[in-house]
């Protein structure tokens, strides 16, 4: 295809340049993502109202079926569709390049739609109630695995379209110097995604063959070990992607420069090298695996990926603090954050995402990922408590935040209900924070995850959970419903804006395009000249560390009181 035939437009307000086919693909993937979020959200209503023991809405069979669908729609489909849109944005738009092979990218999208629909249909038929994890030998309809495989192949092709676009941008000199930090983060996500999908293929293809009878049996421990290379790693794509989104929002809202490109990029490199080891988190309470293997892998070698997240946790708000201080908000430690645009949902969403991911998701994740401490929470409802903090407050809220920026820029529509949008991140983020804390509380009291009835109705030797566990599940129910309202508001604003928003001037298409220039202010590299440039952020980081250390050792203390095990 001749380069001259490619059409571009430049958004007059942001200066971002969109390649027409890439723009269409981003929209298609983002819309598919939101549809999946809607499906998962409706199912979430059933989840919270059933686990809220006093309400106990649906029967056991339906509950487990809907739970399977909820996990897949949210963890796999909403997030990965959105991530493909993010990958195309970070390559073609941020590098002012044409997208590689748009037709193949459409084929990838078609495969993803086909696969996800096939998989969800198999679940709703009722013979594939195997949860997101589909642990063998629980049997599912072959369509279940085939759908997942097709979806994964589509996503894999999307990753290669992203990589191809990087190659084109380089070859056609659409930018000078190195790729931007945000693109670098997206590249991290894509590399992790390729590893993830390969792991998925290695285990899901034989499992599919087993489900149709070509293979006699699949070893459950083998399945778990390889499957988690897919299941956990797919959440690591999210981490890399939403950290990239944090940097993007800091850049868009504040014009923030990274404190040091070297530090931020090295942290992303640590993700590539070590984040994948964490699939061991799910295997710490398994038989058959050695202690050394567990300790090395669960700690990402020596917590090197945790180190990377702690670095991003400092440098993202740190870069905002620097940008704000340069604008004159220099009073005391915290004027920069008090005077931040808290009414801008892109910013507030990103900040709540960052704090929730760190304080709730991060600390609980490291606790759970400690070899011995894992025994205290393995398969309790603490686990979904943790990952709703990482994936819902962290990833989902970050994606919601960037959507508010994309509505006028990508979808060329003015956002409807801006007054409501202002509140959405608070409504969604804070209720999710309560939700996750209550789940973790219930898990600490031993309440199992993926469990229809903690009264054990019909069992001959039932166990009675303490009243506090009931209370926690009640809080999960109420906070969950509020969060769902927050999710509905988001979907309402997005869909409403796309359908009924006032069109905005988004720039005309032409075959001309500019080159992404290296910035002029070369002198301002690193902010070291100020000495201790982000003291406010540093204080917040120390508070975080204090909470982390305290919570970590409280759990060791608790562990020391339980039965001896050796």
């Amino acid at each position, binding site marked *: 295809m001749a380069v001259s035939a490619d059409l571009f437009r430049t958004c007059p307000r942001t200066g971002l340049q969109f390649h027409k086919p890439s723009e269409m693909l981003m929209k298609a993937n983002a819309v598919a993502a939101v549809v999946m979020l809607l499906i998962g959200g409706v199912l979430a209503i059933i989840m919270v109202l059933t686990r809220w023991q006093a309400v106990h809405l649906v029967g*056991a069979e339906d509950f*487990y079926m809907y739970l399977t669908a909820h996990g897949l729609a949210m963890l796999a489909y909403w997030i990965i569709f959105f991530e493909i849109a993010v990958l195309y944005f970070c390559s073609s738009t941020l590098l002012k390049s044409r997208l590689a092979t748009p037709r193949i990218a459409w084929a990838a999208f078609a495969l993803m739609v086909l696969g996800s629909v096939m998989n969800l249909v198999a679940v709703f038929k009722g013979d594939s*109630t195997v949860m997101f994890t589909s642990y063998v*030998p*629980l049997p599912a309809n072959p369509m279940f695995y085939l759908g997942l495989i097709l979806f994964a192949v589509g996503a894999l092709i999307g990753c290669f379209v992203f990589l191809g676009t990087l190659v084109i941008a380089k070859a056609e000199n659409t*930018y000078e110097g*190195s790729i*931007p*930090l*945000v*693109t670098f983060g997206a590249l991290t996500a894509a590399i992790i995604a390729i590893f993830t999908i390969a792991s998925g293929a290695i285990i899901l293809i034989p499992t599919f063959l087993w489900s149709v009878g070509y293979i006699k049996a699949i070893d*459950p421990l083998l399945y*778990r070990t390889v499957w988690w290379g897919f299941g956990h790693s797919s959440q690591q794509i999210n981490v890399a992607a939403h950290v990239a989104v944090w*940097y993007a929002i800091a850049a*868009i809202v504040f014009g*923030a420069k990274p*404190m040091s*490109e*070297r*530090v931020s990029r090295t942290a992303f490199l640590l993700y590539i090298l070590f984040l994948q080891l964490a699939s061991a988190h799910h295997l710490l309470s*398994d*038989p*058959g695996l*050695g202690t050394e293997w567990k*300790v090395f892998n669960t700690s990402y070698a020596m*917590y*090197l990926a*945790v*180190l990377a997240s*702690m670095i991003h946790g*400092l440098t993202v708000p740190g*870069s905002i603090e620097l940008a704000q201080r340069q604008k004159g908000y220099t009073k005391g430690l915290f004027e920069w954050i008090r005077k931040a645009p808290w009414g801008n949902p892109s910013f507030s969403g990103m900040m709540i995402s960052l704090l929730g991911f760190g304080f709730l998701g991060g600390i609980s994740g490291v606790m759970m990922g*400690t070899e*011995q401490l894992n*025994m205290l*929470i*393995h*398969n309790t409802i603490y686990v979904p408590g943790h990952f709703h903090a990482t994936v819902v407050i962290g990833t989902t809220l970050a994606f919601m935040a960037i959507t508010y920026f994309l509505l006028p820029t990508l979808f060329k529509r003015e956002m409807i209900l801006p007054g409501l949008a202002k509140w959405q991140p608070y409504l969604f983020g804070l209720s999710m924070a309560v939700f996750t804390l209550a789940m973790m509380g219930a898990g600490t*009291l*031993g309440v*199992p995850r993926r*469990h*229809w009835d903690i009264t*054990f109705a019909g069992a001959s*030797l039932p*166990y009675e959970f303490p009243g506090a566990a009931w209370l926690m599940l009640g809080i999960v129910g109420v906070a969950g419903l509020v969060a769902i309202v927050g999710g509905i508001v988001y979907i309402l604003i997005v869909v409403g804006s796309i359908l009924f928003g006032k069109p905005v001037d988004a720039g005309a298409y032409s075959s001309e395009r500019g080159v992404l220039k*290296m910035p002029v*202010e070369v002198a301002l*590299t690193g902010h070291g000249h*100020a000495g201790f*440039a*982000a003291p406010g952020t*540093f204080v917040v980081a120390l508070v975080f560390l204090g909470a982390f*250390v305290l919570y*970590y050792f409280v759990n060791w203390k608790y562990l020391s009181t*339980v*039965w*001896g*095990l*050796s």
Partner: protein
Amino acid sequence: MSAIQPPAQRIWWKQPLDKVELVWILIAFTWCLVMFFMMPYWHVYGKQNLATETYRTTPDMFAKKAQAVVDKYTVRTETDEKIPVVRPPAGGDVYLIARLWAWWPILELEKGKSYRLHLTAMDYQHGFSLQPENINVQVLPGYEHVLTVTPNRSGSYAIVCNEFCGIGHHKMVSKLYVVDK
């Protein structure tokens, strides 16, 4: 300049870092090392470590061994299903079967004594969750996992299944007794 533009210096890995970053990286890395070494430390000095002793097994093999212990040490039965309550000698081997949707048999252990607890699943994957102690271990079919357990409080405990194992999952709960000498 900003994070969505190319870095000011092409050679970004030579860019200096701020003192805030340097100090934080040092603190964070120190903390990472502390957390890492806590795990081996606990293997040496702690009393709660998950055993790795594991054997391949089959439902028949395991059921035979479990039956032998039940035949020898059953002290009474409970419920209409006549689930045997087994009280093996202190220090001995005890077998616990996880299957759809029950734990079998019921164990009665002595406080302060150690037992070799053998776990396996007969069909699907199950989760051994001892309540209210909240000790949780994955149970896999085909694998016999041997834990050495030392109860430190007497009383009546529950074993809940916390790995989804089908429609009757929520009924899969049993008892475990710890008695004073």
